[in-house]
Structure formats: C-alpha cells, structure tokens
C-alpha cells in the first residue's frame, strides 16, 4: 500500500515537472536562430512561399499560442512531425530511442562489470596494488573524453587490427534488420532467430559499448570503493568481526549495505547517458535519439528536440522510480 501511495505521489509530481521541462526546452529551441520554413524550402524559395509555409506550420503565431498548441497536441500523444525526416517524431523516437537504450544499457552493464569488482577490490586492498589500480582507473576513466577514446579504440581495433565490425551504425548495411519487437537489435534478432543479424549487431556494439563501459566504470568504481570503505568500517562491520564472522561474510554484508549508493550512481549515470552518449552515437553513426535531438537543435527542427527531451525525462523518472522500488526492497528502514 505504501508502495502504491509512493508511486502515485511520484506521478503527481511528474506532470508539472514535464510541463516545466517542455516549457524550458520550447523557449530555448525557439530562441535558436534559423527558420525551418527557409530550410525546408531551400534557397530558391520566394519570401511569399516562405510566409505561406510559416503560416501552415503555425510559426506566425505568438509564442505563447504556439506553446499552448504544442501542449495541447502533446496531451493527445502527438509529438508533432520532424521536418528533417518528414515523419512523426513519435515514430522516429520509437526506432531511435531503443537504439540509444540498447547502447547505453550494455554500456552500463559493462561499466558495472568493470567498476564494481574493482571498486570492492580496492576498498578491500586499501594500499595494495589493486587499490592503486582502482584509484588510478577511477580518476583516469573520468578524465578521458569519451569521443576521443572511441576514436582511439576505432583506430586500434578496427583500423590497425581489424578485429571488429566497421564503426557504422548498429548493423551491417547488407544485413536485414530484425523485425522490431523491443527495438533492441540483439534481442529482436534472437527472438526472431535471425542469427546473422544477431552476430552483426553484437559486432557493432563491441566498440561503442567498450567506450561507454570503460569511461563510466570510473564513477561506479569510485562510488563502490568509497561506500564499501565506509560500510566496511561501519560499526556493524566491526561488530561482525568482533563476533568472529568470517571476513567474506563481513564483506558480503558490507557490500549489501553499499548497494543503495551504487544503485544511485548507476541510475544517475543511466539517466545522464541517454543524452550524454550523443558523442558516442555521433562517432559510431549510431542513429540514436541523442543524435536525433542534436541534429534537431542545429537544424531548427523543434519537434524532435522537444520529443527527445520529454522521452528522456520520462525515462529518467521511470529509472528513478525503479531505483526507489529497489531501495524499498533492499532497505527496510524506508518501508515505514
């Protein structure tokens, strides 16, 4: 019951927040110089033609009216149309958002696989070589520009060694894309038994996922290490040792107590990466949602930007909600 109330509270808070986000993005994007009508018609267009198109797009109306029209459409689930793709933004995002999610999800998983063990190890090792490695890695990973690391990885693993597929999109051009079910190529190809597509999409995921994983393992490592150091020195850990519990058990319990913080940083990173992985998307021509939004900003294509912002805000909120539910499961103190 508490859970339901909690979620309801969250959702009630959601709507004003989304309106706030949409308002900010709307004003911001509208402030970007550049007129979609001019762009759509090209340099040949006469001023009269442009004016007609502007009227047709509703661009001649005052800003507040334009905003209200947008919100009204939004309320009906209409995110508008992108003039660049000439398709409804919702349709575009249905394809592109999963592309970003797939990339980011595997990237986060890899970051977890690297970051948590190293973080635990360096919290335990204290002054040992592993701790040194962990400390070094944690800082270096945070210092690398991800797009630059991606370039280096491409140069080494694709150009020099030729071990991975060309860093182009999510799947080989010659391979038919799997029928869309979840939007994750890896999952969809497995579900449809399309082995060729599966192999190809995995190959294409390797480098971008490696980049995201290597870079984002840093903060996870640091958070794991810091929290583990704290929980290992917490009274209950000391008491556990006083009670003669085996070190392994003490560590396991300390880790469990460190989990909420680790989950927090993971959720924050996850939400951040939806928009933050855009540089990686660009480097690998990923065709994801972040790339779509950045192009929108640079091309006065308002609707994709707004659509993306709404999608990612919703996504972040869903992630935070899930995280809170996990807290609820882990930490009995919140349950009351």
């Amino acid at each position, binding site marked *: 019951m508490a859970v339901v109330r909690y979620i309801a509270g969250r959702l009630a808070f959601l709507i004003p927040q989304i309106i706030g986000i949409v308002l900010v993005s709307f004003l911001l994007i509208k402030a970007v110089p550049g007129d979609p009508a001019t762009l759509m018609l*090209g340099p040949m267009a006469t001023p009269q033609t442009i004016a007609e198109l502007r009227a047709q797009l509703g661009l001649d109306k005052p800003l507040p009216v334009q905003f209200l029209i947008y919100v009204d459409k939004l309320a009906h689930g209409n995110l508008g149309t992108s003039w660049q793709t000439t398709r409804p933004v919702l349709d*575009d995002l249905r394809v592109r958002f999963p592309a970003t999610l797939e990339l980011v999800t595997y990237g986060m998983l890899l970051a977890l696989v690297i970051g948590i063990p190293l973080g635990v190890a360096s919290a335990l090792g204290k002054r040992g070589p592993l701790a040194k490695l962990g400390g070094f890695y944690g800082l270096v990973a945070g210092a690398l520009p991800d797009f630059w690391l991606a370039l280096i990885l491409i140069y080494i693993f694709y150009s020099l060694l030729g071990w991975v597929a*060309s860093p182009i999109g999510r799947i080989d051009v010659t391979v038919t894309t799997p029928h869309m079910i979840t939007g994750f190529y890896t999952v969809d190809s497995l579900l449809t038994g399309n082995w060729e597509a599966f192999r190809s999409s995995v190959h294409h995921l390797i480098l971008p996922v490696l980049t995201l994983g290597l870079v984002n393992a840093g903060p996870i490592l640091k958070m794991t290490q810091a929290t583990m150091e704290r929980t290992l020195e917490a009274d209950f850990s000391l008491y556990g040792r006083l009670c003669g519990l085996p070190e392994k058990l003490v560590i396991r319990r300390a880790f469990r107590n460190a989990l909420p913080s680790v989950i927090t940083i993971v959720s924050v990173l996850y939400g951040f990466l939806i928009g933050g992985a855009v540089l990686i998307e660009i480097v690998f021509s990923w065709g994801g949602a972040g790339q779509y939004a950045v192009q929108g900003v*640079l*091309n006065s294509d308002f609707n994709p930007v707004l659509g993306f912002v709404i999608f990612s805000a919703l996504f972040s909120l869903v992630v935070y909600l899930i995280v809170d539910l996990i807290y609820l499961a882990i930490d009995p103190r919140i349950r009351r």
Partner: protein
Amino acid sequence: MNDPGSGRLTRRSVIKGAVATGAAGIVAGTAPPASAATEPSHTLVIAAPATPQSLDHEYDVSLGTIDAVGALYDNLLEYAKIPDPDAPEARREDIGVHSDKPYNLNLVGKLAEKWEVSSDGTVGRFTLRQGVKSNWGNEFTAEDVKWTWDRKLNLHGLGPFQTGVLNIFHEDQIKVDGRYAVSFHLPKPNPLLLKQMVNLSNPVYDQAKCKQETVDNDWAHKFLENNSAGFGPYEVAQLVRGQQAVYKGRADYYRGKPSMDTVIFKEVPTSATRLSLLQGGSVDIAQFLQPLEYVTLKRARGVAIDAVRASYAVWIELNAKMKPFDNVQVRQAMNYALPREETLKTVFQGLADKQTGCIPAIYPDFADQFWQYDTDLAKAKALLDEAGFKNGFKSTLSYNAGDPVQEPLAILYQTSLRKIGVDIVLNKVPAATFYDFVTKREQPMIFYRDSPWVPDPGYSTKLYFHSKSYVDYSNYVNPEVDALITAGLETIDATKRKEIYTRVQEIIMGEAPWGFIAWPRYVLARRANLKGFTYYTSNNLRFQDFSRGA
C-alpha cells in the same frame, strides 16, 4: 537554375556528417573486397548522405530527391551525350553552342519526338511520343504536360521560378493542341524555352493518377511526397526516410528496362562511413566524400573515381551593402588576398579548379579573359591603402558548420588577410543558422556553394547578379548589369547574346561582388566495374545510365 541540391547537401545531410565531423575514424583498406559475384548483379547500391526527404520536387530539393526525380520522371528533351574530356570512363551532356544544329543546341527527344520554336522565339510546339505508359499504366498525352505546368503555377513551391524565367504567368499560356501536341506561348522571345524542357526541375507527371490522388486541392502533393506518378525508368518500391529508398526498374519503360533493375539508396550520414562501405564492396557508389577521402581511393583496388568539371562553385559573398565591402577596391583587394592555389592543393586536394569567372567555365559564352585576381598581397595592400584602409579593418566571415571544406578555407584566408592588416573573425554557424544568414544577407562575408542548373549565361547571371533576384546574396546592384541580363534573356541571336554576356562578365569581374575561390569537380566514387557514369549540370545521378561490366 541554381543548384538547390548543393544547398541541401550542406543543409540536412552534411549537417549529419558534420555533426560527426568525419566522426568514425575508419581507415582505408581494411574491409574485405567485394564478394566475387558469379554473374554481374543488377542491383545498384548507393551510399548517400541522406534519403530523399520528399519525392515531390516542387517542395523539395534535397540531394536524395534530385537523384530520385531523375529516375522516376522523364523530361520532354535532353542533351546529347559526349565523352568527358577529363574522365575517360565518364560521359557528359553536350551543352555547347552548335551553330549547325537547330536552335544551336544538340538536343535529343525524350518524351517529345519533335519540337519547334517560332522564329520570334515566343512559341514552342512539342509533338509527343505515343504509346508511353506511366508507372500506373496511364498513357502519356498532352494533358500530362499541361497539368505539370499548371501545377507549377498553382502551387507556390519552386515552380514559380521555373515558370517565371519563361514569363509564363497564366495557365492559358500552355495549350493542348491535340492528344499528342502541346504548345507554350510566351509574351517575349526567350532563349531558355528548350533548355527549360531539359531542366531536371521540369519533369512530367501522370495527371490521371495525380488527379485521383488529389486531396484538398493539393495537386497530389501528399501523394507525390512518397510515391511517383511519372514516365521515367524507375518506380518507388520503398521509402524509409533516414534509412533507405528502393527503386525498381520498369520493364515497360519506353526506352527499355534499365540495366540496373533494383537501386538501393542507403542513408549513411558520415562520409568516412560511406568511404569504408565502398572500399569494402558493400556499395557500388559512395556519394559526396571529402577531398582527402577521394585521394585515398585513388590507391585502393577495385574502386575508381571519375572527377569531372562541373557547374558547382564555392565563393564568398562580399556584402556590397555593408562597409567596407561597398567599396569596389576593397572587394578587389579581398580577391587578391585569397590564397587560391594553396586552397586548391590542400583543401580540395586538386579536385577543383580555380574559379576564374562568375559563371561556370563549362557553360556556353563563358569568358575567362577578365580574370585578374591571382594572389598578390602587395596589390591587395595597395588597393586597401587607396580605398582608405591603410590600417586594414576588422570583419566577420561566416561559414557553415555542415560543410567540412569551409573551415580550413576560412582559416587559410584569415591567415592570408592578416598579412594585409585585415582581421577577420571566423564565425562557424550551424547549418540552420547559416541559411538564415545567407538569405537575410546581413553578414559582411559569408561562404556560399551553389550551381546554376541550366547551362546558360543568362540564367546563371540572372540568379546571382540581378538586383531583383532573391539569390543575389551579395546585395550586388548595378543597373547596367540588370539591363544587360534582362536584354540577353530576350535575345535569341547567339552572337548578340555572346556580346551581351561577355560585357556582363567583364563588369562583374571588375566589380568583384564575390571572393572567387574554386569550381569543385563532381567526383563519383564507384566500384571499378560500374560503367556508364554520365554527368549532368543538375549534379545528380541517373541510375538508368549505369551498367555493370566484367
């Protein structure tokens, strides 16, 4: 007609590439060679910066669109083809002045079998080919031509320009003279009448189908955005924007089914990616690579490039309404300070020619004798001193973030100008803003890249240098030039026209409204066994030209 396509390139597609600014660092020669096919495939795969945004040319001029229009629709006429002097395997339109041919043009009938222009140049009569079917099975008649031009007059897209240059303002100027005869009636003599029938912008629609698909008096606009209704060699099989377009060759095409019966037009936004796909043999053609990328292809096996002289030009608009470019001497000095040779070598990697005139050098009546601006900093400095800018001046040069060539050009120019005391700030703007800047004409200096589609000096100069043209982005005003251009557009006599436009070019070159830079070549990067590339002044590919060799 200027080349909206090149504009489009910079606008949407290259933006993507340039957002990535050459993102993926794919390095040459690592992809496996093309799978050895046992028999030549009849599928043509093209890696393009962008899929067509819309298939309706009235409202769209994107790169993918013009390639599609060339395949889906046919015109009344075309130029005869000749071998290209620069690329042994390529062909090009014969756009020269031929005093031995009717109307001085080497034309070939397409949807029109016979054509004649009245001696005063005001009436053009066309006898249409019979038995031609559209992709919907409707027979081609004069009604189709009439509907096509009526549509231009009724929609306010790009059509008004095409009708405007011919002085066509009313539907009754296009007359159906029989099932297979149509005539155009112009108030004044017009040398462009036949050339406009070749122009890619004026393809013929299947009016029967279009009328069926018309909703809300939109002249089938909604329908034509995603479908075709024409008499060309291909029809649309699939169009997924942002991914690919697939065209199928028509078996009932009146000139016979094209050799390439399936064309897959893939969107691959980054040029590096297109390059690697071509090298790997995954595609037959990689469109619009960067100069350095073409150079790497010269060494690659199984791949060939054809670099032909084209109608493109890259220049800097020197805004004649803004200080100090309202001063002719300053504009001349700016031209003397342009490091053209270095630019051609480093930025264009030799794949461009020095822009020594204000209309494409390949066009008839081009005059190169007025060129005087070979780089000479001393002369530039002297001109500035004379103009009263002894201490130089400060200005801003805007360039398009979406065009990878413009930034290095700008940097080279900036370095050169610094030597004569001119300090320019480089203003990189996103493509959207860039086009805003260009059309608003409020920037002192801005790059531009364009091409006039119709190979005619009158058409070209009217676009860029007539004070009433809205493509006169440098705000150039010279009443004498205006008068001459207009006069030339009403003159049929070839010798007289040549005189007029030689004078126009002389004035313009002297007054230097542009910073003349380069004529980039049209470069096709293709698999070596792909034959038949033909260059058109509209700078588009026509898939029907291609066939696969051994």
